[in-house]
């Protein structure tokens, strides 16, 4: 089944498109191409939220500064921004707490570690930024790129995980009996925790616990719970106004990840619009197969070296095409109901607007 991408981009009911998939498959490229097409071809007020775009693509989109606000892309109607995860985290803190308190939090080493290195912070902050953009109400369509994690599922799981940590029982218990509520845990357990706290103190020093405790109580006073926020954005993803576009390259790992993700979206009742098979190789001469081409190449190597090498190029290409369509079939056999769009591999990287337009046209199957 073919993915009708133009219908999706033009649909006024669709307000958020999330591009997800495993690392390096083309999520950022797809997100930018879809955003550009929605703005240019369908005239929708569109913003694309990119995450860690390749440097040259970022330059083409005018994203030279990490200022965390959407900017109009030169010569287009598209707006684009690049997620600054630390700054988004800081913004969350600033909107919920008094300036002196915020200062304290910013200088806490746990906050510093968490806001810049914790796996999951990027996912969480992408969600946070998405809700901000959504509540600003100035966009017809928000296209969201997702962080370069190895597993596509991280995008769904990391925010809740981070929420659990920040909001967690574990922190309260770990910080010892002084805090209310921990007594309810039965004795042996709290005894182990007491021991654990002591060990942590021994290994890491008392300063660590003081910092940790400062961090927790600061956050505690601040939010109505990180977990709630994570759950709220999770609900946005289940909303029918959201469409997931799953991106995969025709390689075993990417296809396997895409299958996990499609299953998961289904289980979570999140709307999967379709699969993009990116970087598919194609040929204009499908009737000349790999073996015939290779045999012909060796037959004429001495007399026609140039033609022989052209045939070798074709032969390698045909082998790759056969392998790739086998890969793609793994997915389509398992999910016959999921619409698919195929995007040809370009000869060179995609890093300017004209490249994005070509990808956009291919996504919509509107080439030529």
């Amino acid at each position, binding site marked *: 089944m073919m993915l009708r991408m133009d219908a999706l981009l033009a649909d006024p009911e669709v307000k958020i498109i999330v591009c997800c998939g495993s*690392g*390096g498959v083309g999520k950022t490229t797809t997100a930018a191409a879809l955003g550009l097409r929605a703005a240019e071809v369908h005239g929708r007020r569109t913003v694309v939220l990119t995450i860690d775009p*390749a*440097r*040259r693509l970022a330059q083409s989109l005018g994203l030279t500064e990490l200022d965390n606000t959407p900017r109009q892309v030169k010569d287009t109607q598209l707006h684009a921004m690049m997620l600054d995860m630390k700054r988004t985290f800081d913004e969350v803190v600033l909107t919920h707490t008094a300036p002196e308190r915020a200062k304290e939090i910013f200088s806490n*080493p*746990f906050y510093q*570690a968490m806001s810049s*290195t914790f*796996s999951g912070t990027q996912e969480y902050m992408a969600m946070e930024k998405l809700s901000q953009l959504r509540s600003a109400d100035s966009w017809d369509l928000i296209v969201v790129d997702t962080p*370069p994690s*190895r597993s596509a599922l991280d995008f769904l799981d990391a925010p809740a995980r981070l929420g659990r*940590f920040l909001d*967690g029982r*574990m*922190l309260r*218990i*770990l910080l010892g009996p002084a805090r209310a509520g921990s007594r309810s845990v039965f004795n*042996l*357990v709290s005894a*182990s925790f007491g*021991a*654990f706290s002591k*060990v*942590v103190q*021994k*290994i*890491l*020093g008392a*300063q*660590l616990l003081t910092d*940790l405790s400062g961090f927790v109580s600061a956050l505690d006073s601040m939010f109505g719970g990180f977990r709630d926020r994570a759950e709220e954005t999770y609900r946005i993803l289940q909303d029918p106004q959201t469409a997931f576009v799953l991106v995969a390259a025709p390689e075993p790992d990417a296809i396997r990840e895409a299958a996990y993700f499609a299953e998961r979206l289904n289980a979570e009742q999140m709307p999967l619009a379709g699969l993009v098979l990116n970087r598919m190789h194609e*040929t*204009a*001469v499908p009737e*000349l197969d790999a073996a*015939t081409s290779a045999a*012909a*190449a060796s*037959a*004429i190597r001495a*007399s*026609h*070296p*140039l*033609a*022989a*090498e*052209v*045939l*070798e*190029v*074709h032969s*390698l290409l045909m082998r*790759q095409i056969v*392998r790739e369509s086998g890969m793609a079939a793994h997915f389509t056999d398992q999910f016959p109901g999921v619409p698919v769009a195929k995007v040809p591999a370009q*000869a*060179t*990287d995609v*890093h300017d607007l004209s490249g994005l337009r070509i990808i956009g046209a291919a996504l919509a199957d509107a080439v030529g």
Partner: protein
Amino acid sequence: MVTGKGGVGKTTVAAALALALTAGGERVLLVEVEGRQGLAQLFELEPLPYAERRLGEVDADLRLLAVDAEEALLEYLELFYKMGRAGRALRKLGAIDFATTVAPGLRDILLTGKVKEATTRKDDNGNRMYRAVVLDAPPTGRIGRFLNVTAEAARLAKLGPIKSQSEGVAALLRSPMTSVHLVTLLEEMPVQETTDALQELAALGIPAGKIIINGSRPPLLSGHPKVTQAALKRGLADAGLPADQATIAGLRAEANAHLARTALEEQLRTELSHLGRPIVELPLLPDGVDLDGVQRLANILGS
């Protein structure tokens, strides 16, 4: 250490390198630290435990280990504090996961600490247990932080065993015993990340090793910058293949796409050659990587 951008072939190359280093009957340990069971997948094994196991499928003394930060913390607690059972109880409650997650630096110290332990371990005769320990390391985006254990430790702990442990690790990482190899593809982003990572390593004083270009393709058409219609037509006709307009146009388009690609690759190769590290190229294995494929890549690395 083997690092590189996500998906460039770190796990594959680390495995090939480890296998190459077993030459002459030496014992080598191949370690992964990302909790992904990448080695089990590569060698088609059941998930690996937190234990050094010999790989039975090859005629070499290659051992595999999947280090897990939680297990490493438990091992550590047991070693220094005899916290065996209590430690396991804490794990059930998620406390161990919590401790290794809330302080990301702690996780890295535990992981690199385990690598150090294996590297410096001696057998009963006082000889080094392993000729080499090969680490399938985190990707370039995180490698600097991963290896900069002392800075992380200093942030977390001013005193105590974690601090001294991290100092030991840092010394080993900065010694000539360590070499960080960078795997890349001839694509823009992996090459950029290779460049960035080399700078980062230099700033940290950690020795960089080779640049390993993975997935390299045979240099077809390199002597033929222009594919003319006439030459192609004659060749096809001689080979007894259809030489109609559509076929010729199609094949020429493919050849030109190939030339555009190789021109870009050549440019990236030149960029890499200016980074001042030795370069090794590993071929793209047309049918993907299996054990024979790893062996093939090992032979190239070994020579």
